[in-house]
């Protein structure tokens, strides 16, 4: 490829506050249109905004988690433009003094680590949405202002990404962090986490960025990747033909996997930003930052490092377990009760994840097998009461019924047989019934050993203690 792609991302995360950023209306998704509105978020004459303190705290959290410096004197600005879903005719946002600046996130793509700069994070209010009525003969549009004035953080990266994979890695990392912080529900489909991508091409080796296109409001990781890939192709073709990429805003169409022009630069707005005189500057003293810092949870990166260093987990396991805060919490709660880090990891990544996936991608937070139950199961296995194989059967039963493992083992008679006498009888029986294989083994074909183990286990319906089986088989065969 003769072009290098340059990608910068702007991510809008909707905060999970109960009330809106400048009024007391609910932020719940999916309510009856305009049922969650008041004079303030409707932009009625005379109404004034009052800042929701929790939004500031969430923004500080996001800034601390992304290595930003926190701006201690914050000013809200008005971004002026006309649109029917923008009640006041301006959006209250932050302009030259965003709450967080100069941060970064480290990503890893195919084993290579890279640092992506975060230019700024600012607080702003969302607009409403237009609903185009699907009524024959009616070509009116309706406005739903439930979403108007819900709090957003806009997180703007440096144009540091050089491939769609890097962009996705950055986005996923950011997504993971806001979810860890508990400040965003991370729901891409409902628009709680949405992304604009600025994409441009420059000749390989160049340091001067090309003209960029802005891809607007894409709501899945897959589509973002597709949109960027399409843009690379589109812009490369233009450049190959000796043309010039024009600076414009483009929309991604998931049906065709292509982007199309929404508005060009010549229609670009002059937003006439100026400080909002209705809101006094927000002063954030050191103490406030420290108080918020104290509530900062352990973030995935630190958690992963700790799993490797303290628990001795392989990198891979650690990575999988920290992928969500809830999964990591489940893991940690189990380990606290059954301190064999790797065994627990195997089970959480194996049986637990499989069962949840098969169960309609059920969330780990409502897994019927709680950390306590899982720990009990693993203890039974450790004590030798059941074998690893039986444990899997018991797990499935626990998942279905939510019953305690001891109870299932007892009810189904799944207790492992370690009684040497009983096993010896089965071993003798197996050896007697398979003289040919015994001959082979004694003739030097040691691989037949597995066959005998299998036969004994089958005879015991899986309940025989494999260690005892092995020991007795070896003894008899070598006798």
């Amino acid at each position, binding site marked *: 490829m003769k072009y290098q792609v340059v990608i910068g991302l702007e991510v809008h995360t909707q905060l999970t506050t109960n009330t809106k950023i400048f009024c007391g209306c609910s932020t719940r998704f999916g309510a009856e249109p305009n049922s969650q509105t008041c004079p303030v978020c409707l932009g*009625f004459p005379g109404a004034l905004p009052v800042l929701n303190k929790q939004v500031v705290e969430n923004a500080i959290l996001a800034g601390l988690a992304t290595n930003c410096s926190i701006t201690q004197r914050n000013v809200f600005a008005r971004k002026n433009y006309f649109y029917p879903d923008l009640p006041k005719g301006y959006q209250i946002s932050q302009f030259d003094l965003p709450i967080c600046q100069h941060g970064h996130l480290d990503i890893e793509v195919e084993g290579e680590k890279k640092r992506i700069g975060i230019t700024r994070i600012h607080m702003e209010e969302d607009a409403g949405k237009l609903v185009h009525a699907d009524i024959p003969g009616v070509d009116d549009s309706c406005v739903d202002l439930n979403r108007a004035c819900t709090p957003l953080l806009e997180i703007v990266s440096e144009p540091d990404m050089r491939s769609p994979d890097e962009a996705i890695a950055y986005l996923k990392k950011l997504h993971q962090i806001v979810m860890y912080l508990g400040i965003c529900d991370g729901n891409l489909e409902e628009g709680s986490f949405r992304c604009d991508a600025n994409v441009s091409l420059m000749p390989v080796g160049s340091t001067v960025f090309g003209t960029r296109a802005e891809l607007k409001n894409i709501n899945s990781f897959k589509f973002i990747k597709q949109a960027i890939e399409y843009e690379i192709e589109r812009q490369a073709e233009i450049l190959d033909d000796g043309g010039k990429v024009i600076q414009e805003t483009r929309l991604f169409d998931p049906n065709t996997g292509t982007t199309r022009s929404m508005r060009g630069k010549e229609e670009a707005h002059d937003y006439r930003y100026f400080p909002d005189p*209705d809101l006094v500057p927000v002063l954030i003293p050191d103490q406030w930052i420290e108080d918020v810092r104290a509530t900062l949870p352990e973030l995935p990166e630190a958690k992963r490092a700790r799993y490797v260093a303290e628990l001795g987990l392989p990198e891979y396991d650690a990575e999988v377990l920290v992928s969500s805060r809830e999964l990591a919490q489940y893991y940690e709660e189990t380990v606290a009760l059954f301190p064999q880090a790797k065994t627990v990891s195997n089970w959480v990544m194996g049986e637990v994840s499989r069962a949840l996936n098969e169960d309609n991608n059920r969330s780990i937070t409502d897994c019927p097998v709680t950390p306590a139950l899982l720990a009990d199961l693993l203890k039974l296995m450790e004590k030798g009461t059941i074998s690893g194989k039986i444990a899997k059967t018991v797990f499935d039963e626990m998942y279905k019924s939510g019953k305690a493992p001891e109870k299932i083992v007892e009810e189904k008679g799944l207790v492992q047989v370690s009684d040497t006498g009983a096993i010896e009888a089965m071993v003798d029986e197996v050896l007697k019934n398979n003289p040919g294989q015994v001959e082979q083994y004694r003739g030097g074909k040691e691989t037949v050993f597995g066959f005998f183990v299998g036969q004994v286990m089958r005879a015991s319906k899986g309940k025989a203690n494999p260690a005892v089986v092995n020991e007795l088989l070896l003894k008899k065969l070598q006798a």
Partner: protein
Amino acid sequence: MEIFDLTIHELHEKLAAKEVSSVEATRAMLERIEAVDGQVNAYITVTPEQALVEAEAADRRIAAGDVAPLTGIPVGLKDIFITKGVRTTCGSRILENFVPPYDGTAVAKLKEQGAVIVGKLNQDEFAMGSSNESSYFGPVKNPWNLECTPGGSSGGSAAAIAARTATATLGTDTGGSIRQPASHCSCVGLKPTYGRVSRYGVIAYASSLDQVGPLTRDVTDAALLLGAVAGHDPKDSTSVNTPVPDYVAGLAAGVKGLKIGLPKQYFIEGLDPDVKRAMDEAIALYKSLGAELREVSLPHTEYAVATYYLIATAEASSNLARYDGVRFGHRAEDARGLKEMFAKTRAEGFGPEVKRRIMLGTYALSSGYYDAYYVKAQKVRTLIMQDFLNAFNEVDVLLTPIAPTPPFKIGEKLADPLQMYLSDIFTIPVNLAGTCGISIPAGFSAAGLPIGLQLIGKPFGEASILSTAYAFERETQWHLKKAPL
């Protein structure tokens, strides 16, 4: 003395003594409106039914012995105050039929005290104007001379006091909009310190300058009404959380030893001789009462009008963007498409002065001009604030004229907006500085037109300008003169 002639405190005494009922007072006021408002045009909307219901409620409250200073008092509100269920136009066609779903804070406070709201008062459209000629509902006539303007933008609020069609009124003051019409109509008008009274429920013109204040027959009433509406409001983050003093209790403090400053930039050549004479008399009176008068300097005064018209219009251009025909108010018929609907609605809904200011403000904020105009104006504003703080290091209050001339004729300055803008030259700096000022009756011109004087106080120094004003009022009769109506 008719009931409608009484001050708040006079009527309050009669109500408390049950010499008169609120229903009687309210009826008298409604009849007076009926009789004379046709000549004055101070009211955009009169609300007789609702007023009588409120009066009856006030009477029940009085009967129960619960009488706050404003219980049962008929008051009028500039039509910039949002009133639940009562049409609120802001003097504009674009809100001609707008009935708000909520009450603003100042209105709610008046209702809590049991005040009776008799109607909504005429004003310049969106409070933009100094003569009340920009109202969509027609100009207000000055009760002292029906050919003259009452001043603006709270022209209806001042004229209703002078015409005795409200016991007291509330107005708003962005660049002199309470004080200048108070002066032109010979009533008392107070612009409090920015942040003293909540702006919640007051239609914004220029958010960083607007402030709610009383227009009344005398200084005692101003103190009473200010006390009723002042205070911190959690719904307005620019409202300040400092205690509200008992303004009435402080009135009799006197001026002995008080240092009164005379800003030399306010006593310039070209000041109307009648105004000059009234100022000289006031100064002499204060001297005789034991005040110490001295010249002070507010060196950046000459930039105040230019600064004001950049900041106020910039904020207005943004504040008025919500009037787009989408959710409330006027919407143009037959527009094809969204952009045309926005454009036609605003073209039809706004009058020429509002359009002029929106365009000025849009220009001042536009990219490439922002630094040269808006940012520069903010810097000058800081210098003007500093002027006042410096002056208040030397003196307790400032005494100045309110307007360069007595009331002018309707239509006289319409053709020359700049001339009109200059008529606010003595009031605008107070808004830019965010401090407080009061206008009190101080005489009449040879032609019999009212002249007011202005006392400017330190930030949150309302008590001090009220007591200084009260000392003057006690020695003079100007506030007792009635307009010939």
